């Protein structure tokens, strides 16, 4: 399995080459084009109930598609819905990443996707909901972002503060706490984006240069409201 990012920048695609018999899991709707040798299966990761619970608990897309090179080698082109960068990580079986629900684009067969529960405070205040995706296993993992992806490398015990809506993925060796950005809880609740995550290394945190919620709010002001 080989991958290549085409048109890096705001509107990238990723090309994945599959040898015969290989397959890849992709977010449903990620497939743009593929060789005729590749079959597309809508497979529910974790069975029906698993998929159902993921849909309703994380808001994650109900399906992952499986693209399988069942009739010979071929390639598939994948792209995310939103404009933004794509990054390819190689998991080696020991490093694990937590990924916010819109960050997953595709993963090799050896990647295991779990919905993992967060602690109460992180779930309530973190803006990611109570469940996030945990990626483990071995192989290629493709993430997408809204805007550009920025990589923050943290040494052991090094701290860094990230606005929660800019999070894409973070390694499982990091820890984070939710903190209020402004002084005073009332200000935090009323300003709407008063919460930030204080990450502590070691590990890597991937952030996106644009905030989807902020963008949504910005667009909304131009949409005329009927009545």
């Amino acid at each position: 399995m080989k991958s290549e990012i085409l048109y890096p920048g705001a509107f990238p695609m990723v090309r994945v080459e599959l040898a015969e018999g290989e397959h890849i899991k992709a977010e449903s709707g990620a497939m743009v084009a593929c060789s005729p040798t590749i079959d597309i299966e809508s497979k529910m990761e974790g069975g029906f109930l698993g998929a159902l619970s993921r849909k309703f608990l994380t808001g994650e897309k109900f399906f992952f598609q499986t693209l399988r090179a069942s009739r010979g080698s071929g390639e598939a082109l994948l792209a995310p819905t939103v404009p933004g960068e794509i990054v390819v990580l190689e998991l080696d079986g020991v490093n694990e990443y937590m990924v916010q629900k819109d960050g997953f684009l595709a993963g090799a067969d050896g990647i295991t996707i779990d919905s993992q529960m967060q602690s109460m405070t992180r779930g309530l205040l973190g803006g990611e909901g109570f469940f996030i995706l945990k990626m483990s296993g071995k192989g290629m993992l493709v993430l997408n972002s809204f805007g550009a992806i920025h990589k923050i490398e943290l040494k052991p015990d090094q701290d860094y503060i990230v606005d929660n809506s800019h999070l894409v993925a973070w390694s499982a060796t990091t820890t984070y706490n939710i903190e209020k950005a402004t002084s005073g809880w009332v200000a935090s609740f009323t300003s709407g984006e008063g919460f930030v995550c204080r990450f502590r290394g070691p590990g890597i945190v991937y952030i996106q240069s644009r905030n989807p919620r902020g963008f949504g709010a910005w667009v909304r002001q131009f949409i005329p409201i009927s009545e």
Partner: protein
Amino acid sequence: MGQAIHSNLRIADAQSAYVITLPTQLRQDAQALKLRFGFKTILDGSPEVSPGLCRLWYRAAAREQVAVKESSKGHVMTDFHPNALCFGDEFPAGGSPCLVHVEAQGFTIAFTVDGGQEQAEVVPFSRVTVSAGGLDHDQLVLQWAGPAGQRTLYLKNPEIIHAFRQAAPAHLNEPLERAAQQVRQVRKRHRMVWGLVGGSFLALVLGLWFGSDLLVELAVDRIPIEWEQKLGESAYRDFLAQHETVNDGPSVNAITEMAQRLARHVPNNPYTFEVTVVKSDVVNAFALPGGYIVVFTGLMKKATSSEEVAGVLAHELNHVLQRHGLERIVKQLGFVAVVSIVLGNSPGLGGVMKQLGVELMTLKFGRAQETEADLSGLQLLHRAKIDPNGMITFFERLAEKDGSRVEWLSTHPMSSARADRLKAQLAEMPRQDPEPFTFEWMKVQASLG
């Protein structure tokens, strides 16, 4: 990528798996080493080499007192499976994958090798401090100052953690116990929240089973509009395929104008209504989930004014807006059925689909739903400046027996209570001057023949 350093003992980095090629008679010893070192498979393989790993193997073989004979022939291939992540200044920020092996006085740590540079060290227990770390505080973190600088090791493999706890000397027991305590707390908390979530889910399922309206509503709220549209659309297309439709002309224009005028006065309307006129003498009209509306010419012929037809439309539109169809389906077929119908990949789907078709076509709503559609329909007419009296008189007139097939009545039984409720509601509303439609109802009716 690799380079040969020995004719019989060779290691390769084939993509992410490391390949070690060994003499045949060492296979058994290699098996033993595999268990200790986390090598996964031992197979025949093609010879390619990475010298650093080869030295690691040599060292492992030496420690295990395995004689590596250079003269032997044969191949053993293994995958290299790191079991921990090590952090330090010269390592990548994501940590360096490594192999940890616990021994009596400490542990050895060996790194997978890039570019042939070998890194391995023996760390005595006396130099190590212990804590719990990682996102859920469920990893064992070992820290020490090595010859090359400060090291932080993250262990999450249960076997390695167990081996470490077994071998660790007394001075580490207390911090180890504290770390274990933290892990237990995290697990307990997870179990509690999971229990809560699972319990609520179970309650929801049980509630659906026994038809609690509140829980049906909760479930319906979570079904996206697009799903509802898929549900309605398939039934709508099925129905239209079996009936003769009127595709243009005054009657279609009139119905479209009425529907659009009503829809414009629905605040935050998520639906795009689609209206079709069906050629049939049966007096009927219905709306399917998702906003698909069918009006029979029979009903239009029976109406003496456009306001009367608009009244029926307002009522039907409100069945859609209040998601009554969805509520019925969820209640009768269960939530899972809705999901499988929309996603279309569940076994036994044919049966469910058939049942659904019947269900959608004979959408017989409950009394509470009818009252809701009546009253909100009346309000919608009022907002759209259409005289609501037409609705009431038409409902009453439909109930009079005159030999025509009034199917709408079978799903909408008329009672004096129903008319009274509407009249009382109308009396409470402020008077206003209705705005006429752009068409003349008599001409529309005449076009129906």
